[in-house]
């Protein structure tokens, strides 16, 4: 009890210095948490994917479509429960700034295959029966103030012209990790228009989504699907939904690695600042610690005092920083709009923040504590700050 009090009193002796150090740690821990959360957001799509779904696409690359007739053949493959298909639309809502993903889907099979998108029964029915209908996620609807019944015009970049959709439903996610900033509409509508302008590009789709009877069979089924189309004009590449999502992450890996590296650099910077504070403190109190040793307190006890003070400051800054991370992340997610559909501070991030704070405290106290414990009483008493 007495020791704790002594440590705290010591920490508060230089109020300005301690306050500045705490502010520095708060900034560092908050920034560290925010950067980790950005990295997590990058992986959000992959983490939310289901292990019971496979994605089949052209083996050359995603820009090459597959013929719709493949759906029948895939359905016949052993272990496949159902098949759906979708196309990336790439439309622009008013300006390029308002980016959000839009997919042309086969509505019935799509909604069955993705139980994580929850749509009220009457909205589901309205969507299925209106060929020009569309559904959007709750977050997207809130962002643009859309209500059911609104008309949404999109300017096509891949499919020319202006496309107008009737908003028939707003889906909610089954949990927080479900992407609620996407838009889905009828694949039939897209196909009809394409048939008129580019007959050669009709009856084709970007990817097939395959639901497995048993998730354990993912490897066998993907091999079987690809074997079916080997040496055809459009060879396929089938992988789990997670691998499919991760392939997007991998393409921007260089940026991701840079963000990760930078998140550690800030911890190192603040370690230098904190170590500086502790080194100065220990030097100034050299005579005082020597007096304590002369009175009979052990080396370990004195080192423990420095260690405890460092830890107390680091933890205070760390806890404040963690508390600040949440409102800051909420603000950041808001400012970024639909760029990061899922932006949540995970438990792992908080744990890493606590770890970083402890590490900062421990490393900063290391050298001064060791020096103070080692110094001879006579030298310590003689020393001047």
């Amino acid at each position, binding site marked *: 009890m007495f020791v704790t009090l002594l440590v705290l009193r010591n920490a508060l002796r230089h109020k300005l210095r301690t306050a500045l150090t705490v502010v*520095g740690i708060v900034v560092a821990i908050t920034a560290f948490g925010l950067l980790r959360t950005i990295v997590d957001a990058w992986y959000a799509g992959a983490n939310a994917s289901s292990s019971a779904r496979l994605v089949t696409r052209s083996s050359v690359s995603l820009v090459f479509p597959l013929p719709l007739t493949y759906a029948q053949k895939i359905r016949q493959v052993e272990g496949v429960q159902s098949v759906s298909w979708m196309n990336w639309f790439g439309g622009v809502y008013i300006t390029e700034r308002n980016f959000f993903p839009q997919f042309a889907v086969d509505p019935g099979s799509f909604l069955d295959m993705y139980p994580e998108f929850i749509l009220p029964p009457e909205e589901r029915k309205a969507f299925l029966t209106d060929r020009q209908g569309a559904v959007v996620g709750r977050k997207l609807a809130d962002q643009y103030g859309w209500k059911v019944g609104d008309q949404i015009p999109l300017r096509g*970049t*891949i499919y020319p012209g202006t496309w107008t959709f009737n908003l028939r439903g707003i889906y909610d996610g089954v949990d927080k990790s479900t992407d609620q900033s996407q838009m889905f509409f009828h694949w039939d509508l897209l196909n009809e228009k394409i048939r008129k302008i580019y007959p050669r590009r009709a009856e084709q789709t970007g990817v097939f989504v395959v639901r497995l009877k048993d998730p354990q069979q993912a490897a066998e089924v993907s091999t079987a699907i690809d074997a079916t189309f080997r040496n055809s004009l459009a060879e396929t590449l089938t992988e789990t939904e997670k691998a499919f999502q991760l392939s997007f992450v991998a393409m921007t890996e260089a940026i991701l690695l840079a963000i990760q590296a930078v998140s550690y650099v800030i911890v190192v910077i*603040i370690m230098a600042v904190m170590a*500086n504070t502790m080194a100065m403190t220990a030097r*100034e109190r050299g005579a005082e610690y020597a007096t304590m040793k002369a009175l009979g307190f052990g080396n370990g006890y004195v080192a423990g005092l420095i260690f405890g003070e460092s830890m107390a400051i680091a933890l205070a800054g760390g806890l404040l920083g963690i508390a600040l991370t949440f409102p800051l992340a909420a603000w950041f997610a808001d400012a970024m709009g639909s760029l990061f559909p899922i932006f949540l501070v995970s438990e792992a991030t908080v744990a890493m923040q606590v770890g970083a704070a402890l590490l900062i405290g421990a490393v900063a106290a290391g050298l001064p504590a060791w020096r103070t414990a080692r110094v001879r009483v006579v030298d310590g008493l003689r020393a001047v700050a």
Partner: protein
Amino acid sequence: MAIPFTYIVRNLASRRLTTALTAGGMALVVYVFATVLMLAAGLEQTLVATGQDDNVVVIRRAAQSEVQSGIDRQQAAIVETLPDIATGADGNRLVSREPVVLISLPKRDSAKPSNVVIRGVTPEGVALRPQARIVEGRMFRPGTSEIVTGRAIASGFRGAGVGETMRFGSRDWTVVGSFEAGRTGFDSEIWGDAEQMLQAFRRQGFSSLIFKLADTDRFDAVKRELEADPRLTLEAKRETRFYADQSETLSKFISYLGGTISAIFSIGAIIGAMITMYASVASRTGEIGTLRALGFSRASILTAFLVESLLLGLVGGVVGLVAASFMQALSISTMNFQTFAELAFSFRLTPAIVAASLAFALGMGFVGGFLPAARAARMKIVDALRAA
């Protein structure tokens, strides 16, 4: 009278650990700051240099990249009748109809697939890009399944080196050469014969049309003519503009992210400088009193401590810049969000970045040192002497 400069320098030298820790923190911040600016400069330089000012790129209206675009042969023929197209040395009109697609290739080191631009070019297309020259092997022969790869692709992807083969469009393609295009976007492309590509990918239309203007000032007139033609649904851009537009999102992303991170980091470093300078002032109270008693004015005390702090910043800035300059040897390859394709670019240190980084470092030193210096200058002589 001013306090001697050597006195200030010695003050820093006498407390080595503290000086090193503070300057080290600043050096890291300057390093991050400079690297980000270098990355943005490198990206910009790569994409701006990709285009030639008198070349014009024609793509389908509203398409944002060549891959999204589509131009059928009829439309292409109409564009080719433009009288403003320049004529080459051999008398051919300098216009190239090009199919551009993406193929997914595994990276050499990680085997992870990424999208690579593959472009079908004609002899005119090669003439339109004088910056590209073969550095290894030879150019592909028209009418064959031969391809040449850009420098960044040849070294970064499996099957893309000279002599290797890759399979796409149900054919095996032999890489017969590698070209360098002076650190431009073409370094991240694969080129082959345009008509062969059309067959392999079963396409009937092209992706884009590139031509050289006979008179570069006629661009606006040509653009108006093309876009007003009711038979065409195309738009024309100068090649320089076209590639600059394609890097917009990525370079904005890099500079925003980098700016935010540098700003946050600098708070940490400024606090570090402040703590150091406050301690420096506190431990030298008696000394400051003596200096005042000797006749040095408040202003010279303030200046002395500010200079000390600026020196700390300068040391950090120089160390950070030296470390950052080594980054020029590295090149980064990542996906450009707008084209969905791989793009290699390197860090580039420009005089403007050196100036900005040093100014940033000195700024951190100034902000961090001002309050402590002001405290030192405000001290009363008697109190200061008594405190010692």
